[in-house]
């Protein structure tokens, strides 16, 4: 799997071996044992040292808490910046953030990959792009607004199908 933290990218491979885990993080191999300690919590042991990991998932964002510090990571899949729910043409916020720019208006034709709006999160600007060619049917976000993950921001329909 690939995880993104700000501009840093982590390539991670996980193998289970004889009740332990062998995990390679950006080329660095680590052996650890692990047990779940209830929802969102696991006890990790590495080199004889136990530690607790807390985590929660929110859309494509993974929140983790380790050694007194909270972090946010994005699961960097090929389509991480693409919207979910392609079929309905609704573009959703993939993470909590502030809409810093809305670049399209209702009725506007867009082509696949075109920037529709910018959501600022984790100190970075994330461009949300059109999942396909079409016409903007609705814009549900205003500049400066805070949005929660999963919130529909822009709807795209087929050219011509004006209701």
């Amino acid at each position, binding site marked *: 799997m690939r995880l993104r933290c700000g501009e840093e990218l982590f390539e991670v491979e996980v193998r289970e071996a*004889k*009740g332990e*885990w062998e995990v390679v993080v950006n080329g660095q191999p680590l052996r650890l*044992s692990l047990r*779940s300690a209830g929802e969102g919590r696991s006890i990790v042991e590495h080199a004889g040292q136990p530690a607790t990991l807390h985590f929660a998932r929110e859309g494509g964002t993974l*929140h983790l808490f380790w050694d007194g510090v909270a972090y946010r990571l994005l699961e960097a899949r090929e389509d991480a910046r693409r919207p979910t729910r392609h079929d309905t043409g609704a573009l959703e916020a993939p993470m909590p953030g502030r809409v810093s720019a809305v670049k399209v208006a209702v009725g506007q034709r867009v082509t696949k990959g075109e920037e529709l709006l910018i959501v600022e999160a984790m100190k970075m600007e994330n461009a949300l792009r059109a999942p396909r060619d079409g016409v903007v049917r609705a814009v549900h976000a205003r500049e400066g607004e805070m949005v929660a993950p999963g919130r529909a921001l822009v709807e795209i329909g087929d050219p011509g199908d004006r209701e």
Partner: protein
Amino acid sequence: MTPPFRKLLVANRGEIAVRVFRTCRAMGIATVAVYSEADRGARHVREADESVAIGPAEALRSYLSIEAMLRAARETGAEAIHPGYGFLSQSGDFADAVRDAGLVFVGPPGDVHRLMGDKQAARRRMAAGGVPVLPGYDGDAQDDGRLLAEAERIGWPVLLKPARGGGGKGMRVVRRAEDLASALAASRREARAAFGTETLLLERFIERSRHVEVQVVADAHGAVLQLGERECSIQRRHQKIVEETPSPALSPPQRLELCEAGVAAARAASYLGAGTVEFLLAPDGRFYFLEMNTRLQVEHPVTEAVTGLDLVRLQLEVAAGRALPLAQEQVESRGHAIECRLYAEDPDQDDLPSPGRVLHLSEPEGPGIRVDSGLQVGSEVTVHYDPLLSKIVAWGRDRSEAAARMRAALRQTVVLGVVTNLARLRAIVEHPAFAAGELHTGFIEEHLHELRPPACPPALAIAALAATLRLGKNGGGGARRKAPDPWASLGPWRLGGSA
């Protein structure tokens, strides 16, 4: 004893509303919460007997709307309104409007709020009442020539303060005569924009000073009690984040002198209710009046921890016109208490509020630990309000025990979903200068300026997360469901010893 009121409305939100409701429940007073659209389903709403929607998320049209508060009180038949802190708590107009509506305002009358909201008038009144004020100038003549002469008389460096207003806006330290003119122009501009008047005060600026404040409570029968001091020197951007009592800087005679000055200040202001007199404590041990907060203070729990008193209860009794139930010699202070304010803010990003949804929460517990929180899993932290999440208070028989309990409590605290200042709080209470009690208002800049919690987790945390996610995915059934046995990693040991 019969409760002082039948029903009370809290014109606030978050942890302070929850805190006031707790005392009301103990006293048999019915409670009313108010909430904006952003706070539908918030913890303070769930913990009240009744709740009233007062408007949109924007504070100006909800928590700052006097009209909306009075309407909510009328609708529910509340007899009294507790303003909490922030929002309308120091608004003289609100205090007057509540009284004019035939209700009880839990706090001093409007005139007292207005007096203390005017730094120039407050400084003059305090000086007249024998309360020490900083060498300074609070006159009406404001031309540059006069202010330069006054600054030379006071001695450099000099602090410029808008006569009205607060929050650090328009305040400026001037170190040399040649910088005064441009600083005056900038401060006047900011003061006019923020407070509508450009009158300035000049005061001697004292480096490495401490911020120490005195808790007072006054009743309508002439009694004024002091409940000891709190040291609030650890601040970021003029906002307190760690407070404690007693102050490690004061000897017993100094403490008594300071607390008596607090009582003198309350008397000079004809105070009523619970209030806090803030003083600047100079490195030479002298102290000077800064301002008076005409409301319950965020950090009041440390005073409660050492005195065993319930400050909200005292507020309610005094507001109902009753006499204070104890005399000064009955106020006892035991041990030491420290408070840490957990904020949803990013110390890495100039302490900007960090909005989001709380996804996971572990609050500390244990002997001597108190948590005042308005938080629950699912709570939304919005950009509309102060991002205080909760207050963690540790009590110990002495300062080192309180500090040790606080360190343990912060290690137990987990918040996921919003960025918090938790790592900074830990760094403060674990710092040797904190352990030594060497506090001053530049503590963070001096000791923790270079403190940057890592932006990204270490490889081991990433590895643990990846393995945990895989473990979860494989949890559906079959042999892989079994969590790795922690004993497996212990090597060649066997239980039972029969190997």
